[in-house]
């Protein structure tokens, strides 16, 4: 009834090419933005920010990054944890080396550094692919973690080997360090997420995205029709590295504030982000959000129900939580192998016909 193309006349090519061609979609998008920017910051408290919203926002950026590489360009990567570490350490070095520059630019620059590192580790993708490439990217994961642990320059020779985010402000409001307000950190991450999502969405809709998808679907055919596989693959690594670097920088500077590389950016992180995009949906920006939300919210929600509501012992709840997450992943895959994003798509198709499905 509300969700249909009919009656929504486009009079220019720009209109025709917009991100959300359906009116309902467009308004929904504006409403989401308005709520996220205009309402949530007034309601938010420390618990909501640190337990749900910040990890959700930051993981979403990482998931968008990985989704570009894996979902759009078909290059499976298990080096996400290591690349996030690059972002975090780059941000730390920049923050401490240039304390007067705004943190906003440090985060962007950290993304840039990660893009370079990620491209370098993407070089083997020109020779190998599939699971072999996935395992090869593990080399990046282990090597980077080892490097940040070993070379004390990266943590400014501190005796503890940990990096701590000093206080930095944006427009006079602290966003890192101890004295942050929940709304400020939230908005800071949200801005990055919104910009990342818009960039990613438009990249994947444009020529670059089509090249990536051509490589993903069949690399030889893509080459024949004139896609340069080297450029396409490496550009995917670079763009993906940029987003992952930003998320790593935010993860360290805004969310955690103190990081030890092996513990926070270990192999588990790589797997976690990969789970997010598979559960959410490969090759879908919305899927990145959905997957991140699912894996951030579900464990906390289960914990709240088990421990706080039912009062069960924490260890039994934690074990049952593992079982439920595992079972849900399997059930999900059996019911809908293409992730939450596919459910969303199906729902939209249904909506188009509703209320007269025939």
């Amino acid at each position, binding site marked *: 009834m509300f969700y249909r193309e009919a009656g929504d006349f486009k009079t220019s090519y720009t209109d025709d090419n917009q991100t959300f061609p359906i009116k309902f979609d467009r308004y929904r998008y504006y409403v989401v933005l308005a709520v996220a920017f205009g309402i949530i910051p007034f309601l938010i408290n420390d618990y909501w920010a640190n337990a749900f919203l910040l990890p959700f926002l930051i993981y979403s950026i990482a998931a968008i990054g990985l989704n570009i590489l894996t979902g759009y360009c078909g290059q*499976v990567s298990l080096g996400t944890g290591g690349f996030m570490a690059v972002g975090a350490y780059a941000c730390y070095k920049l923050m401490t080396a240039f304390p007067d520059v705004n943190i906003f630019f440090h985060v962007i620059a950290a993304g840039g550094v990660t893009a370079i590192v990620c491209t370098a580790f993407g070089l*083997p993708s*020109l*020779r*190998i*692919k*599939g*699971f*072999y490439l996935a*395992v*090869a990217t*593990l*080399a990046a994961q*282990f*090597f980077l*973690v*080892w490097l940040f642990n*070993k070379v004390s320059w990266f943590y400014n020779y501190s005796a503890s080997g940990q990096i701590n985010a000093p206080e930095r402000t944006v427009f006079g409001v602290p966003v890192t360090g101890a004295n942050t307000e929940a709304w400020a950190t939230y908005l800071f991450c949200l801005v990055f997420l919104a910009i990342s999502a818009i960039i990613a969405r438009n990249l994947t809709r444009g020529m670059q995205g089509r090249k990536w998808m051509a490589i993903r679907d069949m690399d030889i055919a893509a080459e024949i029709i004139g896609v340069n596989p080297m450029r396409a693959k490496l550009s995917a690594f670079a763009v993906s590295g940029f987003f992952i670097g930003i998320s790593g920088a935010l993860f360290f500077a805004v969310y955690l504030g103190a990081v030890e590389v092996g513990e926070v950016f270990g*192999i588990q992180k790589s*797997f976690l982000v990969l*789970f997010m995009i*598979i*559960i959410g949906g*490969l090759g879908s920006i919305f899927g990145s959000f959905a997957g991140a939300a699912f894996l951030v919210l579900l464990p906390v929600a289960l914990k709240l129900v088990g421990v706080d509501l039912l009062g*069960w*012992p924490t*260890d*039994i709840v934690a*074990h*049952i*939580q*593992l*079982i439920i*997450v*595992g*079972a*849900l*992943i*399997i059930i999900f*895959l*059996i019911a809908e*192998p293409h992730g939450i994003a596919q459910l969303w798509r199906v729902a939209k198709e249904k909506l188009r016909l509703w209320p007269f499905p025939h």
Partner: protein
Amino acid sequence: MPEQLVFAMEVFLNGLMAGVLYALVALGFVLIFKASGIFNYAQGVMALFSAMTLVGIMKGQVPFAHVINAIFGTDVHYFGWTVPALLAIILTVAVMVLFAWAVQKYIFRHLVGQEPIILFMATIGLAYFLEGVGDLMWNSEIKKLDVGLPQGINEAIDNYTFNIFDYGFFIDNLDIVATLIAALLVGGLVIFSQYSKEGRAMRAVADDHQAALSVGVSLNFIWIMVWSVAGFVALVAGIMWGTKSGVQFSLSLIALKALPVLMLGGFTSIPGAIVGGLIIGVGEKLFEFAIGPMVGGATENWFAYVLALIFLVFRPQGLFGEKIIERV
């Protein structure tokens, strides 16, 4: 003979032994991948689970004791009997077969024909699930595992090499046993797949599902069989590693040691897994010995991957891979 060379020889031999253990873990992956195209992330957790089950049966632990106690307010922990190692191993194998059957019936039968990454994801779900069940069932303490395998330095080799080089080599008895068992296992697998009806059916399935189906091979049966064999291999790996460190959560991480082996040897080749394991074992130990001290040590984790990566860049089909497979 210069001292460094003698040391290097000792490191080399130990690398070979470590490589056998890596190969043992990799073997489990290869079996399942070959027959069903599933990259089984849960292999490490299966090793953990089977070793936990083995210890639990041997000690006569009550499964799910913690949950039972929490629900009913009882205080049960042990049945009060102990089971001899051999019987316990047989019982554990039975549990793993049951597990294989359940995995096939409830998960992968519903996922036939899906993309590899979806199947991979399903095994990750399985790994979570099994991890939770294992801990609930047998609790999360570190358990001592003793099935009577010898451990410690091998005196004969120590004395023999001492007479030759003036320096006794250290070879762990457990590693020697592991090597023998791995050799038996591989030999057994080769004979099984070459000469038995089921084994040939398994190879047929690996070659071409459709063709195998059309000549009357039951895919369901083969897949249950493959998962059972992989479960058995996981048990063997679990026993070997568990004897050394006690049975505990970290056993599930040994899968990470097997991945570079798989890259090197190929996901589908049993001899590849063995040779790959040996190369990785020797390579990482020698690198740690020769270069490690210069860069600060603890290089083994990443070097194995880098070694495999460099190798693959020059030879994308792997050690024994056929020329044209999906690698570029």
